[in-house]
């Protein structure tokens, strides 16, 4: 327990010490929110979709959590290059605990980041259903865990930052763009529709949209179940890969 706690605390200390990271990672969601929100807003209304900010805001919150989580997981590569990883790997604690501590820490950071973005969306004009806010936090926490575990699994296999660009462009960006964060998933071509349905973030976005804006299309329980199952599987895969790291 103490191992998990101290590694969790480490992630938080590092997060709060890097002010530039906190502010820097808010730039992208803010830009998406303003540029897309106000840019496509009028067209969305004309198409009969209603208020676009209302539709977009949960997607942007999910986006900020996605990126923040993946980066937390990927931090293992930095730790490997700066040597700190060795310090934890030779310690007499199970690698499973190390992995869980790191993942919880990274997920907490992502959750904080998502919360800040949620507050920002309220300023941009998002009208949220505050009654279901606790459930929204559950979904945010699930998305955070799921993608931090994914980041950990990926980072355990990568040896340096060179492979990262590949992961970014062929995995993370598609996960984001094909999740329904930016546009409704109805009426898409068959192939793309299938991709969106196997994309875990789709259910995260849907869950957030359901709790924050009453716009769920799969049902909150289904979203919850899918996310939980995938998160557990990824945690398992992540800890397996992490336990196999040789320095």
């Amino acid at each position, binding site marked *: 327990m103490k191992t998990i706690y*101290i590694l969790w605390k480490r992630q938080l200390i*590092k997060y709060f010490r890097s002010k530039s990271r906190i502010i820097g990672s808010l730039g992208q969601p803010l830009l998406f929110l303003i540029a897309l929100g106000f840019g496509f807003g009028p067209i969305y209304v004309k198409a009969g979709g209603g208020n676009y900010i209302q539709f977009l805001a949960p997607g942007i919150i999910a986006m900020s959590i996605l990126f923040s989580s993946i980066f937390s997981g990927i931090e293992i590569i930095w730790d490997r290059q700066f*040597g700190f*990883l*060795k310090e934890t790997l030779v*310690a*007499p604690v199970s690698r499973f605990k190390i992995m869980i501590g790191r993942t919880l820490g990274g997920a907490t950071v992502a959750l904080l980041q998502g919360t800040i973005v949620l507050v920002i969306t309220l300023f941009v004009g998002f009208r949220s259903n505050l009654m279901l806010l606790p459930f929204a936090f559950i979904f945010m926490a699930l998305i955070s865990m799921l993608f931090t575990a994914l980041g950990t699994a990926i980072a355990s296999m990568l040896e340096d930052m060179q492979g990262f660009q590949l992961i970014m462009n062929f995995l993370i960006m598609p996960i984001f763009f094909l999740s329904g964060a930016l546009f409704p998933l109805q009426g898409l071509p068959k192939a793309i529709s299938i991709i969106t349905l196997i994309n875990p973030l789709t259910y995260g976005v849907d869950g957030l949209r359901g709790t924050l804006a009453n716009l769920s299309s799969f049902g909150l329980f289904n979203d919850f179940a899918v996310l939980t199952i995938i998160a557990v599987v990824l945690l398992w895969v992540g800890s397996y890969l992490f336990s196999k790291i040789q*320095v």
Partner: protein
Amino acid sequence: MDNIITAKDLTKNFKDILAVDKISFSVKQGEIFGFLGPNGAGKSTTIKMLTTLLNPTSGEISMNGFSPVLNPDKVRKIFGIVFQDPSLDDDLTAYENMELHGVLYSVPKNILKQRIEQLLNIVELNDRRNDVVKHFSGGMKRRLEIARGLLHHPKILFLDEPTLGLDPQTRNHIWDYIKELNKSESITVFFTTHYMEEADRIANRVVVIDHGKIVAQGTPSELKKQTGTKSLEDAFIAVTERDIRSEESSNLDMMRIRRKMFRR
């Protein structure tokens, strides 16, 4: 005395490079053991295999009776290590780095605080304890790492070139403390160094490894006698003799091996 470390026909291949080639040696409980060799000889690779970070290609290791491959958690409990290259978290303070290590090695809380302070005093960093490590000089980081490696009073302490880049004062300080620990807690010390004078003064017994093979072993005075030399440095050069050309190619080997290990 019993052997606390034994290696038998230990071998490690990195694709086409044979980093360690069938070496066998043993270290006795409570001994200060010098593991010497030129750059790229296979010292760090051997240490990584002993400390569960790398699996050997073939051969057997026993660390206090346990195999690092089969029982890594049991082995990890009994040693402490100061790595050749830095392994601190730059974003944490000196104290936080120490504390994290203490928790990972389950040092009891009441002892931990006092021991951190004692060790930080020895390496003369106690006044900088709350500074983030990022702002430390290379020598300060080194000192902090040594303090950290000693924090949990391990049974075996691995020191991979611990005093590289330190001034003589700090070096003496640190070795005095290590010798003291070796006596009072009978900690076995396994170290590598390029300072032969240091090895001569401190090691009870040394092994010289070159091109992944053991080329000499014994007490420093035995080595000097065998080679008919006056200092351990001369003895070292006599057993690892090589001209400048092969030195160059060996540097390249070293870089390749390092790069490989880095990427692992």
